[in-house]
């Protein structure tokens, strides 16, 4: 958790950053994804002599059939949450707003450049981020792409005879290959990239609970989403008819 200059948690000011629907979707997403990875990797390794350990994992689950059922249950949850997200995006005000905020902009390209120069020590200041940083947007769109590919190829593997009617060029073998490749990419991104940003990053270690309560402290807001912070303060000021004091994050 970010250092808060000796301020006790209960004294710190928090901003509600994510609503309940958003958090439910995220929770279902990570639960299903981890289930799919835990069951999917041994399924992929089964029958390959160099991965004999996978048999031990299968034994833990009872049988390969049980593991397949769990994997498909995880897949069903992922599909449902994806559909849920589509409805959320289209039919809720919050969903539409979040979607628009997540769209890539020119500023993101500028932010990447500035941040890269900052990493190299060529600039002293980090870019000022809005509601979503470019790497958070990347996370979102990577999951979007990943879901399309994983669900698409997964359905080909799950229902090959149906898939062959509509996408005959997309063979089962190719589906299996792409499914495995995309899963590797998703797992690596999740455990290396995403976990670094939300867990292992020295500013966040051992992790943030934003995913749970949806709240972010003023310090974190200023550090990572300063433009959103200003926006929120300004909005609060306007609503109360007071002068804003961005430094304190409070209204006067």
């Amino acid at each position, binding site marked *: 958790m970010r250092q808060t200059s000796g301020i006790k948690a209960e004294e710190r000011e928090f901003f509600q950053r994510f609503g309940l629907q958003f958090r439910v979707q995220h929770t279902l997403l990570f639960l299903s994804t981890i289930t799919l990875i835990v069951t999917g990797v041994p399924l992929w390794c089964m029958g390959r002599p160099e991965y004999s350990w996978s048999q031990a994992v299968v034994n833990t689950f009872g049988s390969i059939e049980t593991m397949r059922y769990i994997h498909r249950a995880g897949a069903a949850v992922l599909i449902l949450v994806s559909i849920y997200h589509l409805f959320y995006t289209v039919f809720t005000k919050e969903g539409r707003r979040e979607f628009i905020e997540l769209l890539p902009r020119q500023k993101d390209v500028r932010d990447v450049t500035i941040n890269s120069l*900052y*990493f*190299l020590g060529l600039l002293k200041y980090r870019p000022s981020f809005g509601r979503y940083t470019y790497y958070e947007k990347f996370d979102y769109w*990577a999951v979007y792409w990943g879901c399309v590919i994983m669900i698409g190829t997964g359905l080909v593997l799950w229902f090959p*005879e149906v898939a062959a009617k509509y996408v005959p060029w997309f063979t089962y*073998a190719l589906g*299996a*290959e792409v499914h495995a490749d995309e899963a590797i*990419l998703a797992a690596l991104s999740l455990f*290396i990239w995403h976990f670094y940003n939300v867990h292992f990053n020295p500013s966040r270690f051992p992790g943030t609970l934003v995913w749970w309560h949806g709240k972010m402290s003023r310090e974190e807001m200023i550090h990572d989403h300063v433009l959103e912070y200003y926006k929120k303060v300004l909005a609060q000021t306007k609503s109360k008819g007071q002068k804003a004091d961005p430094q304190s994050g409070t209204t006067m």
Partner: protein
Amino acid sequence: MAEPPPATGAGANPDRILWSEQRIGSTLKKETVATVGWILAFFTSIYAQEGQELLGDRSDGSRATPLHLIPLYAESKDAEKGEQIEPDGEFVTPFSTRWTCAECHSYGLVKKGWHFNSVDSNVPPGRPGEPWLYFAPKLCIQIPLSYRQWPGTFRPAQVGLTEFQFTRIFGRHTPGGGPGEVQATEADEIGRQFVSGTLEINCLACHNAHHGQDMGGPGGYAVQVSRQNFRWAAAASCEFASVKGSAAAVPETYDPFLPDPDEKNAPRVTYQKEAFNENKEVLLQIVREVPNQRCYYCHSDLCYSQPEKAEKWASDEDIHLTAGLKCVDCHRNGVEHNIVRGYAEESANSSNPLAATSSCEGCHLSEGEDQPQAGRLGAPVPKHTGLPPSHLKKLTCTACHSGPWPGKKTILTKTSRAHRLGTPNVNKAQEVLPHIVSPVFARQGGQPQAQLGDSLAGKIGPHKVIWPAYWGILEDDQVKPIALGVVEKVVGKVFADLELPATGDWPKITKEKIIEALKALSPAAAGEAVYVAGGKLYRLDGSGELAEELDHPAAAPYMWPIAHNVRPAAQSLGARRCEDCHSPEASFFFGKVCVDSPVQTKDGVFREMMDMYEVDGPVYVRVNWFFKLLIIGVMTLLILHILGDLYRRVMLLLAKRAK
């Protein structure tokens, strides 16, 4: 004296055989019979020359098998019709099927048949079939040969085999004719062929229904062929004659038409006298429809899918046979003997009017014509419920319905022709050469990618496969096999100390031995000598070391489709579930194709089944590569980002401490 009605022409009595029957019991003198025979022969030869049909060329419509109580005739010294056979004569000669049967059946027409026309370059080769496999373990050779233009096979002449030599090696599993009747032109073979005779079409090999027809017995057809007793082979195969001696054992100056009683090794035929009636006629058990047992002699195979099923009695037979059909119910022909091979596109290559409707589809699927074709011979019309139509477009019927059930690895398979099955002293070891592996799913109609080029449009079906191993000369990136005589002389000397396993398996050669052999071969063959084995081409590089070239077209495996045994529908691939093919363990995609090679370091090499037929080729490869590169590219950028972030944090920390 009863004059024989003419066999053909205006006023001909179409049933001369009945006339023969009437003659049983008559007391014609031998001279009379001979005279009648000559008259018949005269008319026959005239009509035959004029292309007139003979008595047996066309059926009169009767389903009954015609009686074949007939005189037997020998071949004369000048290769014409000779004397009638007299079993108790002073000099007994083997009867000639050609001159005996040609009395009523146009030999020239029969010769056009698929079994006999391989040497005719005008005959379309059709779908690749089983080649003749020449193998020499001591020389580390197994090479597919064929007179037909099947891609991947070599003409026997390319490896230095004359028709005479080819016949002596492979004639054992032919019904005669073809190369067996080609006149020798090599000086040293002309004399030998005068002694041995030609291997004329042995009508009895297929049409003799007698259980005494001996093709593979100790004194039967195959043994006579190996003894160069070509002229005697047909007689030796039938139930009422036996042959002793060997044409190969007598000098080429020996005259078989003026036999020397002192030449003990000379071939001699003996007839069972009781087989001849008083008119010196023999009752042959000739049948129009060839019995399955006759086909099996040349068309059997043995798959080592499961050790307990290696015995024939333990394995099931083709479902069509179980249902009561015979081989010839589908593989039909008329007097031209242009037999239906039975593949889907055959009508494009065959003049047989039944070619289009005697394939799997011909009997089982309707094409919506005026007459109902589907369901012929009681064939059930498949519903293929739940099967996506793309399967029928991309797969042959045999892919799911024929051949041994595919396992995780291909299995060694023997065939009659390749392994001399049904002949004396066959090595029954599983590992015996030549090494044919099956089932391999590959594009129908040719060889894999390397040789097919753009014609990958063929359906995928099961195949038998052989990985050629031979010594050749590399010219303009083309490999020409070196004549076997040269290889035997040069490589045989280099490999003299190789130990041959009792199983008949490869002796296993080292790379050093290959280098030694290639260095010895190059000057002898006047070119850059190379060795092809296990899908690789071995050649010497500039420094004299051995270089390997993978997937050279000359090293591509030769494949031919599996048609039988057809399994019952319930035992078809996919009948239980899609996972029969669509699962990570499924052999159809992920089975291991054994790459056979005598080269020691390459023992146990396999290729994935998919490599043999390319799944939607370029699309598959491109998509596959895209995702591989995506993983590498994205993860590289993300890790760089993380490292950049950490680097900056460390730098800031150090700067802070320095202050």
